[in-house]
């Protein structure tokens, strides 16, 4: 049981390049989330999914797209990376229902130059 796994862990992109972050969970969780964390700030919700084939916008969705084609995977895409997207990205999952614990991945450090 690996929990929540994010790949890649580190990446440097040039402005305008595209990339995809992969989040995989092996706990059969329905709900998955992508957050970004910037210095001096808490986590801000980018997009989330309440089940396979569904996605929804969070607090800061602009510049990102997501897909949940399989229940265990939640992909975060940057179509045209910008320096403002330099951040640490965290994926999380939860089985669903209020009061359940969210499980986080270890983070993906992205730098856009």
């Amino acid at each position, binding site marked *: 049981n690996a929990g929540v796994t994010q790949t890649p862990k580190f990446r440097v992109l040039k402005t305008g390049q595209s990339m995809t972050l992969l989040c995989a969970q092996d706990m059969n969780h329905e709900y998955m989330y992508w957050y970004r964390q910037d210095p001096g700030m*808490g*986590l801000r*919700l980018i997009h989330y999914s309440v089940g396979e084939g569904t996605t929804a916008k969070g*607090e800061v969705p602009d510049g990102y797209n997501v897909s949940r084609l399989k229940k265990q995977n939640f992909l975060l895409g940057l179509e045209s990376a910008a320096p403002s997207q330099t951040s640490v990205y965290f994926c999380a999952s939860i089985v669903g229902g*209020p*009061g359940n614990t*969210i499980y*986080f*991945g270890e*983070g993906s450090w992205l730098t856009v130059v």
Partner: protein
Amino acid sequence: SQQGEEDPQALSIQEGENATMNCSYKTSINNLQWYRQNSGRGLVHLILIRSNEREKHSGRLRVTLDTSKKSSSLLITASRAADTASYFCATDEEGGATNKLIFGTGTLLAVQP
């Protein structure tokens, strides 16, 4: 906009002392959770308190919740150097069906040996 605001932003104490962190939030909630984040790592769930609870204990952790003031506090007793980390509160909005956790900006705790 972020739901939670932690206070203080940073706290430095000696090993053995107690550490108290506060969290204020804006909307009605189902529950409030506290998370810990070691430098360069993902977030780890510490404790959850439901909106109808006023106090909860877990080991050296004590959490209080005052829904009339929309605030919570986390007390770590008999602190250890290993407690050095950032601590975040997160709220699950009342009526929300998606388990969207909204995080505060965090308190950086440094425990000096």
